[in-house]
């Protein structure tokens, strides 16, 4: 019996699901090993007898809570794919202002008379609602990390995310440090596993893979001081993908 996989989308851009469809021959190989029984974005069949569920997107409405609880009940293994599902991601930016204000900004002054209609709650990652076995952070998730996870599950092996900062991969890639280019980079405290793709492309790290388990905050502060920056500067940057941490404290 091939293991049955299911993919479910909550609030997000569906980019992580798209990453699964972005494989070429790997997808054909994968389909020899597993059955995909539920993947609304790509298939019509809707099977409810899955063992491993992948969640794309975060929880941002009341109605999504019973839905994720139902999936949790069925799935032996629940995997949060991408920054929205695993960290809260950009969705959590809405948590920094009153809901009424966001409503007015998007739908105009009359919208607030109809707040009863908008089923919206502060955005949160999946683990804030139900327990999660594995997380694949990143915006979007790294599809090769997804493949590594699936292989580990098929072999019954434990899957671990790297627990060192992006700086390690960035040095290996031979990049000029983004701080030396005058940018604020979150690489020193962000979990590696992306091959420092943003810095390698001339940018900086926005922290989309979340914090490493024991971030070396002293060293980050030192770097900040050296470049005339404050903790406040970096927290503001961290908010783009990790605002949930700030608010949930």
């Amino acid at each position, binding site marked *: 019996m091939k293991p049955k996989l299911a993919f479910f989308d909550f609030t997000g851009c569906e980019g992580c699901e798209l*990453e699964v469809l972005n494989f070429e021959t790997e*997808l054909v190989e994968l389909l020899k090993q597993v059955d995909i029984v539920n993947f609304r974005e790509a298939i*019509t069949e809707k099977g409810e007898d899955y063992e491993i569920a992948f969640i794309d997107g975060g929880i941002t409405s009341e109605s999504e809570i019973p839905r994720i609880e139902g999936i949790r009940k069925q799935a032996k293994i629940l995997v949060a794919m991408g920054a929205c599902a695993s960290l809260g991601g950009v*969705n959590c930016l809405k948590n920094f202002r009153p809901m009424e204000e966001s409503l007015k900004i998007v739908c105009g002054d009359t919208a607030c*008379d109809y707040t009863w*209609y908008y089923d919206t709650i502060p955005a949160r990652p999946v683990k804030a609602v139900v327990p999660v076995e594995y997380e694949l952070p990143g915006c979007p998730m790294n599809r090769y990390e997804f493949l590594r996870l699936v292989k580990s599950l098929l072999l019954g092996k434990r899957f671990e995310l790297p627990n060192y900062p992006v700086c390690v991969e960035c040095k290996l890639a031979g990049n000029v440090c983004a701080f030396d280019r005058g940018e604020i980079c979150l690489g020193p405290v962000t979990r590696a596993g992306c091959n420092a793709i943003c810095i390698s492309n001339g*940018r900086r790290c926005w922290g989309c893979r979340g914090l490493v388990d024991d971030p070396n905050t002293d060293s980050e502060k030192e770097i900040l001081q050296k470049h005339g920056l404050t903790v406040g500067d970096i927290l503001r940057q961290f908010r783009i993908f990790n605002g949930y941490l700030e608010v949930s404290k």
Partner: protein
Amino acid sequence: MTELNINVHHLTRVEGHGNIIVTARNGKVKEITWEIPESQRFIEAMMRGESYEDVVWIAPRICGICSIAHSTCSIQATEAAFGVQLSEQTMLLRKLLFNAETLQSHVLHLYFLAAPDFLNVGSVIPLVSTHPEVALRALRMKKLANDLGDLIGGRKTHPMACIVGGFAKLPEASQLKTMQQRLTQSMGDLKETVKLFKSFKIPDFTRETEYIALRDTKEYAFISGDIASTDTGTTPITDYLEMTNEFCVPHSTAKFTKHNRDSYMVGALARFNNNYSQLSSEAQKTAEDLELKPICHNPYMINVAQIVESVHVVKDSLRILNELITRGIKEERPEVKVKAGRGIGAVEAPRGILFHDYTYDDKGVLTKANCVIPTNQNHNNIQKDMEKLVPHIINRSQDEITHMLEMLVRAYDPCISCSTHFLTVKYV
């Protein structure tokens, strides 16, 4: 007499969540609804108070499939606000990157989302064993488009190399040459795609409507030009609000758009109908081969317009690559001077015209944003199509009617995750 109780909850093989509801009693239609229950994300509120570099970083996260369109539109709105001048090289690279997404998105839609309906399967997955050549071709073409996106944008989904004023990283000549060869070889796959869709019976249904798309005097427009309407001619993008007329309906919180008629269409067919004469000769030949002529009023032909555009963007990419290789890639670091002001960006996302409208303060912090997305503009048109289609086919079986309606919505390739606004269209 016909009794219908159609309730397609969370239509599959579309991006985002949509429901189709149709009820009829004694052969009389009681309700036809294209309903969108997608969760609101409040993107425009999220962007407020962020600096311009973070704004253009957040914008692509509106949609994973058309992240390059949102990124480009966001960057261009910001450049318009600051008055940034672009080099020719930047414009060429930007078009190339944009072509990658158009091809990727069209191939995804044609093969993964639309073709299963014509081959009577639930998805592309069974095709891996029943029609391996079709499935592998789809994956190969998608990979090519993704690799082109990776090469120019750093990454196809949520690109990072494209920035305000230009590019943070430039491709090397050798990489461009390899890509040129691969794109040339892909013409065979495109020919097979034409053949495949020629064998499909596209439903015959027409409803006259207005078609809106960007138009540039110099080329088949994707990232530049004015707004063109098949009814009213051209309007500058700065007057986009006159075209889109977006508004919330209090009792349903829907955001509708309409212009000259009850509804209008955007997307591949709207671009084709407005700008046919600017397509490459190969793309025009493909249109002829697939019996698509402007102005076509059959929404099911959107699929065919996507094939025509796929041929066009491959040819156009080859032209751009040739030009870039001939002139040589030059290192250039864009200079951006922040200033207070408002800027409007307009691009043709795979699913149609997209607007980002930003106001920045003198520190480059966003004070106001408005994004008008293509699917939002198509909603009303989908609804009106359904209203005309259902009475026509009311004597068919419920399954057949459901299938026709699902195919209709899928033809529009709706991208509901793009819902920067709450979209609920409810007719009773």
